[in-house]
């Protein structure tokens, strides 16, 4: 179960490039165990360290900028999280301490993985992201109101589907929600088994 997400105030870290893929978020070589932890060190490894597999910080990369050391929000570019479906990308972001990514668009698998791990994927347009990045000051995300506030004059709303919102707000586990519908599932499967017996392998074919 993920930590509930209601409001979050933090200085956002700008990483505004299109097509930040999951290989960049966590290179495959950094996925060293079969668990969901121990990944924060590998977050953005290819960009963050001076050499492949090394651990010397590249001072030119924003994650190493002390100004953003406590950032819990990433400002991203279009199609954020594209590429491999590896959930490790989201686990690494979460373990490092990020709770939200704001981008003009997300790869769908990545956005789904975010929600399941308590990270908010918020979509606002690229111009708004530029404004926030320029301001270089803390913003407040209010998930219930679906708004991102920079200051008194500037705030933006973002869309999110109802279920993703509910899961984030309450830190709900999707599996528990679906297991509550076990009776519906069983009824459906019984009817389906009569129609498509070949789907049910190893059972009464």
């Amino acid at each position, binding site marked *: 179960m993920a930590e509930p997400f209601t409001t979050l105030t933090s200085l956002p870290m700008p990483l505004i*490039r299109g*097509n930040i*893929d999951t*290989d*960049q978020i966590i*290179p*495959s*070589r*950094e*996925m*060293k*165990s*079969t*668990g*969901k932890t121990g990944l924060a060190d590998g977050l953005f490894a*290819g960009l963050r360290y001076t050499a*492949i597999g090394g651990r010397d910080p590249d001072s030119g990369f924003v994650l190493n900028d002390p100004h953003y050391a406590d950032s819990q929000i990433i400002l991203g570019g*279009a*199609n954020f999280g*594209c*590429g*491999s*479906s*590896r*959930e490790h990308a*989201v686990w690494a972001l979460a373990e490092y301490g990020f709770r939200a990514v704001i981008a003009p*668009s997300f*790869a*769908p*698998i990545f956005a*789904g*993985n975010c929600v*399941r*791990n308590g990270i908010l994927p918020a979509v606002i347009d690229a111009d708004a992201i530029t404004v926030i990045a320029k301001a270089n000051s803390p913003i407040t995300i209010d998930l219930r109101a679906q708004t991102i506030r920079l200051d008194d004059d500037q705030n933006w709303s973002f869309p999110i*589907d*109802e*279920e993703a*919102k509910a899961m984030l707000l309450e830190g709900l586990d*999707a*599996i528990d*929600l*679906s*297991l509550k*519908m*076990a009776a*519906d*599932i069983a009824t*459906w*499967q019984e009817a*389906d088994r009569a*129609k*498509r*017996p*070949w*789907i*049910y*392998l*190893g*059972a009464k*074919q």
Partner: protein
Amino acid sequence: MRKWRLFLPEPTTLFGKLWNSHAVAALPGGGTLLAIDRVFLHERTGASALNSLAEAGRAVADPARVFAVTDHIVDTRPGRTDKTLMPGGQVFITETRAAAKAAGITLFDVNDSDQGIVHVISPELGIVLPGCTLVAPDSHTCTQGAFGALAWGIGSSEAEHAMATGTLRLNKPKSMRVRFSGALAKGVTPKDMIMTLIARHGAAGGKGHAVEFAGQAVQALDMEGRMTLCNMATEFSAMSGFIAPDTKTLAYLEGRRYAPTGENWDRATQNWRQLVSDANAAFDTEIEIDASAIIPMISWGTSPEHSVGISGAVPDNASERPLEYMALKPKQKLAGTPIDAAFIGSCTNSRLSDLRRASALLKGKTIASHVKAICVPGSSRVKREAEAEGIDAIFREAGFEWRESGCSMCFYAGGESFDAGSRVISTTNRNFESRQGPSVKTHIASPETVVASALAGVIADPRTLQDG
């Protein structure tokens, strides 16, 4: 007063039929609880999904419909064991084996005769079937849509969800039809079709859509070609890509291990015949492409949308970062660019027909002496069948390495890779930065184009080659 109306069922798309036939319940907020017929895991993430499920005290609801394979990081050099070139990779294999056993699911293990890349062996074994929903924690699961299935890649948490409940919670994507009219010219392949689509409509062109591939050029493809086409639907940002099943689909599946038999086969094929988009079904988006105008494609940048025809050049307005990474200049011609290595493999282009076409062009020739060339069959079955036809000998004599099956150098996991910074022409599906190794510059193309380039030592047009 009511008027009489003729109550005909509303025309429905193939996607609508696949979706509706799996809708278990509507969810608050507009989503659907969708039934999942098959789950396929691999060793890269399989153990974490299975272990995490077990730690939460949950069981796999129906283990007979869950499969796993070792393909992603398994070694592909002859005489392989559980040891991998990827540091620490062995743990992924041994833990997946243990977790699969504990969960009671079927595992195609390292030296199993059915081992191979998940999207190659699932059809070989008849695990994917028309009209089924199939998910795997791998984005190229859409490959299997070639069989008229709804197949797509998911994350690990969703894999746990699918295994524990037999369902997934989803929002219905929009429907798109991409119609390839006309016939492909000689030397042009399904890889060139999908690369053309992505080059024209962008790597995000299919976003939010489930894409049906249709039209004369699609119907003309054999099943393996259809898989190549559907494989890269994910590079188009589509939820999935699929093709209505036809007699070729049935002929391919009949007699496969997990395909229905006897009376069930007859019932199944009757059911599968309905899996077409009705004549007047409405799609949210439609795209037409004239297949006869497609030429062999080559990527120049670091996204599959960065692709042009083989006789073309880097666009004048290409953005800086991909060009800097690829060490190319605007307006530079792609053909003639020297390459360091060539790779034939991956779930895109590693099936028997791919290897047959490649070997026909290679026969009796040798590749340029400075090119490191590797061929990795998509499955152990493909490898056996190719060897029975003498294809391995042709590859070897031409100067290629011939490997055991697996994902191999399609992606870099920390083990084996091409030399840092080298330029590779590859039949894979992703030309992302460092996808095939640190700073490796990947150009994706068809097997024909890879062969022509390996022979010439520079990026080359396959249409200039004669079969050996």
